[in-house]
């Protein structure tokens, strides 16, 4: 297993322009084997373009990339044999049934009839698609489609999986089911490169996150490193009257906290942890301050973007 020491994905200086418009402006990435790496950014940041290039679908204008040890340009066929792609631009066959879709993938991986069927049945079982397996995929819900998509990707036992916005458009339940699946993949030792617009998703799943903005990487690190760089996490306290707000502001220090007088609310900076919450409640208790309501705000993608780029993450042009 000497492979372990070699990065699963190694990208330097990736550039791509569409019709003269620069979409990727020199991307460098290193993804260690067996880890989950998240490319985080708003629509139009270049996430999907990156995945399309790294999955051999389109060519970069400049830059080098090695996937699972194979050069993207020199040995695309070997790269394809090592990767799996699931996401927005790749699709399931809506006319075929779930089983037929997965068996087709098994046939294309030349697994043989018996082994192919066995593996297809196993994957459909694993992704909770047994009941729907005989129905055309176009009748599936968004979550089922996404699970079928992933089952098809896993037929070939890829060492590196690209997940392009795997939960976009899913309801909360589908989203959590997908998270569970991705965690399982990571536990199995597969390298996962996932793109997402959601900070909580990257935080939840990724070992490392790179933030992409207008075709450039603006930050990279572990979720904790990133969040430490991002102010914006706070606890919001609401009061019934001016007096309560006044004494709380005094208690937490005017400089530390910020006041929203119209709403009779005070924002106290916090990382959102239970410990800091308890300290805050103890403090309020000590000072005998009555609080009408309390809510915890963790930094979201907007905070990250504002902190890192000085502009909000509002969607720009939908170049993908």
């Amino acid at each position, binding site marked *: 297993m000497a492979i372990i020491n070699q990065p699963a994905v190694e990208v330097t200086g990736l550039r791509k322009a*569409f019709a003269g418009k620069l979409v990727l402006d020199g991307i460098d990435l290193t993804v260690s084997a067996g880890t989950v790496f998240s490319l985080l950014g708003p629509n139009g940041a270049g996430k999907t373009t990156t995945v399309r290039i790294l*999955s*051999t*679908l*389109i*060519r970069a204008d400049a830059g080098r990339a090695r996937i699972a040890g194979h050069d993207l340009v020199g040995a695309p*066929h*070997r790269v*394809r*044999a090592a*990767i799996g*792609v699931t996401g927005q*631009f*790749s*699709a*399931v*066959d*809506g*006319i*075929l049934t779930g089983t*037929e879709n997965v068996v*087709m993938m098994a*046939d*294309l991986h*030349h697994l043989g009839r018996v082994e192919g069927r066995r593996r297809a049945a196993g994957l459909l079982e694993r992704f909770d698609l047994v009941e729907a397996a005989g129905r*055309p995929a176009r009748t599936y819900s968004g979550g089922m489609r996404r699970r079928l998509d992933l089952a*098809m990707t896993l037929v*070939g036992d890829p060492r590196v999986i690209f997940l392009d916005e795997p939960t976009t458009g899913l309801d909360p339940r589908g989203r959590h089911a997908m998270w569970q699946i991705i965690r399982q993949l990571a536990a199995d030792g597969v390298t996962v490169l996932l793109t997402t617009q959601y900070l909580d998703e990257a935080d939840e799943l990724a070992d490392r996150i790179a933030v992409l903005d207008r075709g450039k990487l603006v930050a990279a690190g572990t979720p904790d490193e990133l969040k430490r760089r991002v102010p914006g996490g706070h606890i919001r306290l609401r009061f019934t009257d001016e007096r309560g707000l006044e004494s709380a502001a005094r208690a937490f220090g005017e400089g530390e906290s910020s006041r929203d007088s119209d709403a009779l609310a005070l924002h106290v900076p916090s990382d959102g942890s239970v410990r800091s919450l308890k300290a805050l409640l103890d403090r309020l208790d000590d000072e005998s301050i009555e609080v009408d309501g309390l809510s915890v705000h963790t930094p979201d993608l907007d905070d990250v973007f504002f902190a890192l780029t000085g502009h909000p993450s509002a969607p720009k042009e939908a170049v*993908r």
Partner: protein
Amino acid sequence: MSYAVSDSATMLRRSLRHALRDPTGMLMAFAIPILLLLLFVGVLGGAIGAGITGTLGGTAYVNYLVPGVILMMVGYGSATTALAVNADKTEGIIARFRTMAIARTSVLTGHMLGAVIRTMISAALVFGFALLLGFRPAAGPLDWLAVTGVIALLALAQSWMAVAVGLSAANPAGTGNFTLVVQILPFVSSAFVPPESMPVGVRWFAQHEPFTPIIDTLRGLLLGMPIGSSGLQAVGWCVAFALVGYFWARAVFNRDPVE
């Protein structure tokens, strides 16, 4: 490369499954040619047959008509193929195949083979139905073999063109021009009436367009008449279209897809 045959077979199975589950395509492939046959024989046949009786050499109009209907049928089939390929492209399944370590253009080969098989089945149906309507071919076994070969070659040629068109078109509507051409051109050929009955300019076009030698070849073989140089011309046109379609499709497939 070593898996080209196996991957193309997988893609062919997929294409045939699609065909069986597509009622509109089935209708295009089977019902419309038969409707055309009924229309021309039962409704228009009397007038057309009487009008061109001198040039038919005494044969019934249905005998004259069958090769033209076969040609129309191949056209309808290839329109379905262009739509199917376009759907694969726009829905993203082709993008998925492109990221897999499979024989590169096997998905296109699968579509082409599926189209040829669909066409041959439709052709058998049209011939069967024509027999019921009084079609009396004078072809011997070798002639029938040649007829089968010409239809298969024509289907191959039009299918590769259809695959290229479907792959190039940005959306289903983009395949419309191709569909129009393959469905209108037969009317301005020897398919339904002899070119000799047409006005001079149109006649020149009808005599020189690719479909006319193909129809004349089929007609000659079926009715036991000499085909002259039509046979060679027919094969030439088909091979040319097949090559153009194949290389065009391959070039588009190997180009980076744009969204």
